[in-house]
């Protein structure tokens, strides 16, 4: 069942490979959308059938037994919401790309491969399998940015992205090998390692393993100061690529903390939880401040991602401060962190697609070039405002639920850090309000460069169909979060028990 969910896009991509490469994009994009919808149906089935404890829908086949590597898939309350979010974001990107004109065949095949790798990361229960999907997602994303990038510097941005994240992934691999060698019998199996807790005593090896894994995940997340690859990659990537990069690929980093670092290296996690909290808070404040200074819409959204991922780190760090807080608070922080991953994926995906729609019309991301769009393009203005408010954490949207839980859970353990992080929310609120007033209000103004189509139309049905469901889901989670939290809470309790032992 899980294998079907993971590899369905690959099967579709191989089938599409047989078709001749034409410029009629529908022939390729429609199957992509359908693939996402079928996967969504399967995910609903998984959601309904998920056992209340442990991993569901487990598939465990020996792969390279002599090296302790197995093909081990499974979902629990932490990974399933991320799988669902991944597929939703990809499907939204597919709908948005329905009319992609530039080499639609390779474009769709690449995205389908990326889709399979992204889902694979979240369901892999073997470190090497995780690494395999993690690395493949980097490779495919590189080709998306390099091949369909919008700016003139797309290739150098893609190269930066590849080098940075590949360095991170190799650090990750070294960390995995350290854990593997510490375990007896040697294994890369995540549940087995979590049960065995081979580095329970802590010490330098455990510290080195956490450092290597932490470094690898921090590059991907990205945490300040490893974030410098993110803004250029986002600026140059096509809109669907940006949505997937921010919505899905960044979550692989934070998910790795919850799935691997916390349960497998609990002793070191407790030891260095304070560092994680500090790094998270730095990302929160730094990301927000730099975002405030941006005039480029996409760069601004990219930096708010740094800010939002900082909250996740604050949450998972606080969950490691066992001595300072009770079990309930730590569970709240972890649940909040997972919710934040889902929420950020949906909202940022929508924001980047909207930014892409704006670029299609005005051919620039410069916020100064636009003004008074509320009157000219009410649908765009409305959706952009909703997305902005959702992103800054207004109650009623998923971001609020997530950040509220993180702050509540972290407050007891690290009051100072939490207080500083709340400042980040204020700054984010400020920067989004400034952006809204600049672009949507005031005198009507939009770029009139040569080659720009004169009419500046409002969002079309295709763009609405891509962004509205994302924001709708964010609102549903914000208003009736129980269906999500009921799934996440038992799983995050398990993670916290593993950390606290």
């Amino acid at each position, binding site marked *: 069942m899980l294998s079907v969910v993971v590899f369905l896009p690959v099967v579709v991509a191989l089938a599409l490979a047989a078709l001749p490469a034409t410029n009629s994009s529908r022939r390729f994009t429609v199957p992509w959308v359908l693939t996402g919808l079928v996967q969504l149906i399967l995910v609903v089935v998984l959601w309904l059938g998920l056992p209340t404890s442990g991993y569901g829908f487990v598939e465990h086949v*020996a*792969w*390279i*037994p*002599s*090296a302790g*590597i197995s093909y081990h898939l499974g979902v629990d309350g932490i990974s399933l919401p991320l799988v669902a979010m991944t597929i939703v974001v990809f499907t939204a990107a597919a709908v948005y790309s329905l009319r992609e004109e530039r080499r639609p065949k*390779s474009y769709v095949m690449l995205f389908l491969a990326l889709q399979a790798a992204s889902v694979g990361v979240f369901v892999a229960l073997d470190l*090497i399998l995780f*690494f*395999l999907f993690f*690395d*493949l997602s980097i*490779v495919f994303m*590189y*080709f998306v940015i*390099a*091949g369909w990038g919008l700016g003139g510097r797309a*290739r150098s941005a*893609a*190269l930066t992205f*590849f*080098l940075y994240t*590949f*360095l991170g992934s*190799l*650090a990750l*691999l*070294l960390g995995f*090998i*350290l854990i*593997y*060698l510490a375990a007896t019998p040697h294994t890369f199996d995540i549940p087995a390692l979590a049960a065995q807790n081979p580095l329970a005593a802590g010490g330098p090896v455990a510290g080195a393993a956490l450092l290597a894994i932490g470094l690898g995940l921090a590059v991907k997340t990205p945490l300040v100061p490893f974030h410098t690859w993110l803004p250029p990659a986002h600026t140059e990537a096509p809109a669907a690529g940006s949505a997937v990069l921010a919505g899905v690929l960044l979550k692989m980093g934070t998910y790795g903390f919850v799935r691997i670092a916390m349960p497998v290296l609990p002793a070191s996690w407790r030891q260095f939880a304070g560092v994680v909290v500090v790094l998270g808070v730095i990302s929160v404040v730094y990301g927000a401040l730099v975002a405030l200074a941006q005039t480029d819409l996409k760069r601004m959204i990219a930096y708010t991602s740094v800010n939002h991922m900082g909250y996740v780190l604050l949450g998972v760090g606080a969950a490691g401060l066992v001595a300072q807080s009770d079990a309930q608070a730590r569970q709240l922080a972890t649940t909040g962190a997972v919710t934040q991953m889902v929420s950020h994926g949906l909202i940022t995906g929508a924001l980047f697609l909207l930014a892409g729609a704006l670029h299609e019309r005005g051919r620039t991301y410069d916020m100064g070039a636009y003004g008074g769009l509320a009157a000219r393009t009410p649908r765009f203005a409305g959706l952009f405002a909703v997305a902005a408010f959702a992103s800054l954490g207004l109650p009623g949207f998923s971001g609020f639920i997530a950040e509220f839980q993180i702050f509540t859970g972290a407050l007891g353990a690290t009051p100072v850090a939490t207080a500083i992080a709340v400042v980040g929310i204020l700054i984010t609120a400020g920067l989004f309000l400034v952006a809204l007033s600049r672009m949507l209000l005031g005198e009507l103004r939009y770029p009139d460069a040569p080659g720009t189509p004169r009419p500046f139309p409002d969002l079309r049905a295709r763009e609405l169909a891509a962004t509205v469901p994302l924001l709708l889901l964010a609102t549903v989670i914000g208003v009736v979060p129980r269906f999500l939290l009921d799934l996440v809470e038992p799983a995050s309790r398990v993670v916290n028990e593993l950390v606290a032992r």
Partner: protein
Amino acid sequence: MVMMNEDPTTVIPELALLVGAVLAVLVGAWTPRRRQGRVRVLALLAVGVGLIATVIAASEPPSTTFDTYVLDTTTHAVRAIVLVSLALILWWSRDAVAAHPRESEFTALVLLGGLGAVLMAGAADLLMLFAAFLLASVPLYALAGWAKTGATTEAALKYYLSGAFAGVTMLAGITLLYGAAGTTGYEVLAEGLVTGAAGPAAVGLVALLAGLAFKAGAVPAHFWVPDVTDGTPPPVAAVLTTIPKIGALAAMWRLLLAVPEAIVPWPLLVAVIAAISMTLGNLAAFAQASVLRLLAYSTVSQVGYILVIIAVGARTPEALPALLFYLAAYALTNIGAFAVVAAHPARTIDEFRGLGRRRPLLAIALVVSLLGLVGTPPTAVFVGKLTAFTAAFDGGMAWLAVLAAVNTVASLFYYLRWIAPLFRDEQPEPPQENESRTARHGAVAASALSLLLGVAAGLVLPLFATM
């Protein structure tokens, strides 16, 4: 104690290569030029016989034959790797050598070079090792000059001179080791060294390693690699950068394990050579505009990664399967990359622009090969690197694993410099005339095999573990 025998049937794979080479010369001489294809068929038959014999022999327990030749997992694995590599290269080089005036010589020299490489891997005696070294060298000197153009003559001369120098050094090393240990057989070498003088033994071993480093293309004997690779036709370059390396690295492994670490601290020496090889190879590859020179330096760095495994060879049981798997993975991937160059008349990175449009399958094969050389999962080299890093950590050389990881990231930079232009939008040009169809098929097959080997690593790795 291993069994002794003098049964010629134990060396059928080697005999098959020898007979194949001799027949290639004889049949080639009596065949008209346009029918020279039958020589290749004959050679492929010989390789096939060798492969079948290898598979049958691999199920036997380890033994020594003719007192100087070991039949164990390492030998069997190297036989298989070399034979498969030979078959691939002979097959996809067809368009490049067909109707060439010296077509059958190419086939014979390639087979002899392969024979030398296999013998190096199995040699358990210093003199036998030297004979195998010569057999792996002399035919390949001739092969380097096979095309007889200006550049190949220079390449052959350079290869020959550095080879002759390496051979003399190696022979001097063997003399010293013999003087120190009083024997040339590996089995009693350790005993002899314990009682003998340690100083000459150390000098001898270093000199001997210098010769093997030449064959493997490792620092400090790597100077021939870029010039020879760039100066010879791609099929020849593929042979020179793949086949002798496999034999030399396996020989290095066997020799070093026979020398007690306490007398000559060779792990550190090999580790330093490994570190310099991978770093220097990578740094030099950065600025290359010629794809052949880029690949040449990439092979130098790949040898560095393999030497990491040899450095910890005596310290961890994980090393042997790692070494053999990496050799297999490297051979397939490297042959795939060279096949792409052979398939396409372009020789600089710029000329590869837009290949993705014109030849999508070839471009994908190149991407798989190059990302394979980087070590992206699920290609075979990834599993090789994973096992290599694991062995390095386990053998107490974590710094080497970290350096190898850093180097891997650095190598990504120049591989991507080649990959990126493939998919640039260009005016679609009509396919050029001097493209090679067999090389294109060879590239796709080799890269597909490297992927397959990576995915099926679970089946292959246990075969390489010591029985």
